[in-house]
């Protein structure tokens, strides 16, 4: 159920980003005389100070926000997989070094580092912003994947592959990697959320490319255009709502995957009188004491 709602939300936004601009056709940057209008039949989500149509901006903005999110999550995940699997598989000194590196990037505050890095960028295009975000976003996935690799490494089929003389990289990529795909998927989705949020923060600070419309840059212009003081709620509500909805969709899909892996987390409707004691432990018997 959860996972269906989540996928529904994601499909909706994916369609918006892929097909939306073709359907709307209008130029998101085009200004008009109708500045700061509330939602109406002509402008479903109202207009900005310079009369730009907000719905058009949202639709075009989804391309940048999702694009940066997915691109930097792909980069970060590739890096996380490399670091996590190599460290977890080889162990020893290699693992020590990679673990410390991972933990350092895990502890360092990401956004301030992104801000400093972005500040130095000669050009702040979509790709370079995505790379900067990826630099700070790979550590969590690497940590999770390393832990999983450690446990998979001990399983029979991996031992068998090693015993039969297969090369380390063959074992890592053809034996271990496929088993870890669900973990990689959840880590990828979580990274997408973080990257979308980071991009929004960066744009909101005016540190991304402000000439392209993204949800973050919409919020930047709304803030600087005094949208709040004028009471133009239609200007700043939609971009933030879209970010939060995408995040919710990705999280729902992730919770769905987690619950399949860990049935105890499932919300269970208790038919009998729900005493706290009764409601608390659902699958205690999973441990099969009997």
């Amino acid at each position, binding site marked *: 159920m959860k996972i269906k709602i989540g996928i529904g939300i994601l499909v909706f936004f994916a369609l918006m980003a892929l097909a939306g601009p073709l359907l709307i056709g209008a130029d998101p940057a085009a200004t008009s005389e109708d500045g700061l209008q509330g939602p109406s039949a002509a402008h479903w989500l109202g207009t900005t100070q310079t009369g730009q149509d907000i719905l058009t901006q949202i639709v075009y903005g989804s391309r940048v926000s999702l694009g940066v999110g997915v691109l930097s999550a792909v980069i970060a995940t590739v890096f996380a997989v490399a670091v996590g699997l190599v460290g977890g598989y080889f162990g020893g000194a290699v693992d020590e070094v990679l673990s*410390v590196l991972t*933990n*350092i990037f*895990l*502890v*360092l*505050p*990401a*956004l*301030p*580092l992104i*801000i*400093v*890095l972005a*500040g*130095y*960028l*000669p050009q702040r295009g979509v790709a370079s912003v995505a790379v900067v975000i990826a630099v700070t976003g790979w550590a969590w996935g690497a940590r999770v994947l390393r832990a999983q690799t450690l446990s998979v490494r001990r399983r029979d089929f991996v031992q068998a592959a090693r015993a039969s003389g297969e090369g380390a990289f063959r074992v890592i990529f053809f034996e271990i990697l496929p088993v870890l795909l669900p973990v990689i998927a959840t880590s990828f989705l979580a990274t997408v*959320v973080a990257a979308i*949020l980071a991009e*929004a*923060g960066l744009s*909101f*600070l005016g*540190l991304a490319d402000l000439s392209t419309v993204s949800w973050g840059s919409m*919020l930047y212009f*709304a*803030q600087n255009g005094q949208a*709040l003081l004028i*009471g133009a*709620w239609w200007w*700043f509500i939609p*971009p*933030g709502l879209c*970010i*939060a*909805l*995408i*995040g*919710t969709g*990705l*999280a*729902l899909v992730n919770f769905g995957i987690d619950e399949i892996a860990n049935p*105890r*987390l499932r*919300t*269970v*409707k*208790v038919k009998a009188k*729900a005493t*706290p*004691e009764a*409601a*608390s*432990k*659902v*699958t*205690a018997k*999973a*441990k099969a004491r009997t």
Partner: protein
Amino acid sequence: MRFLARRLGFYLLTAWAAVTLNFLIPRLMPGDPVELLVARLKGNVDPAAIDAMRRAFGISDAGLWQQYVDYLGNLAHGELGRSITFFPTEVSTVIADSLPWTVGLVGVATLISYLVGTALGVLMAWKRGTWLDGVLPAATFMHAVPYFWVALALVFVFGVTLQWFPVSRAYGLDVMPGFTGEFAGSVLYHAALPAVTIVVASMADRILGMRNVMVTTLGEDYVVMAEAKGLTSRRVMWAYAARNAILPNITSFALSLGFVVGGSVLTEIVFSYPGIGSMLLKGVENEDFPLMQGIFLVISLAVLVANFLADLAYVVLDPRTRQESE
């Protein structure tokens, strides 16, 4: 205490990594960072500022290694260079003026968020299958909301529309800073919306994290046994289940601190709160790299200190970490 010593060693290593990153970032970018900046500022800079910048970056004709040593030496004396925005004020002075506001705001808000979020997570796990499950979708949604958007929404509703709370500054223009009740009241009044922003935006993670660990903990035998002992539900829930479930949560809380701080930076900016977040924006707007880098360093160190405090709490709460190695 080996646990703490190991953690401390790791934090020192991380601090060194942050410092070194700071040193390397300008040098990894193409060209001479100072020339680059001067070019970007269109020559609009005091020559004294250029010189100060060179020193702050430790850029000289000496080799890279010597530059690095000089840079570390300067840092050891607390010298972060001079700010371009506030030239000729030292970056360390700018930071010293703004840091207390941030520490106060973010510290208190994070603490509130942690306590309330943890308590809610415990209750939600305990009362699974009741109306409290309805909090889950809301928490899932809040978990992905950008801090600055929450801030904007609060400003709009409680600041502009209802006019209940001030929407900028840290205290009223009409009060004199000092140890007076009036000043303290004004500070609290002004901190209300930024603090609520941080609490609301960061709490969802705590709720979800605590709930999930707690649900697993409730299946443990020691919780069943506590129940069999005829203890009150309250005692079973807190002294047995929550007391254990909180341990893995301290770790994830510590790791989320960097994220909370990042969100708080943006929150300060929305409220023009005079903390280091707003200073960071000023640095960004003016391409004031010494200031930006100094702030990154200070934020990193603050997060490391907070992490170490979390480790201390962990040691206090988990007797197993106190075991001396035998």
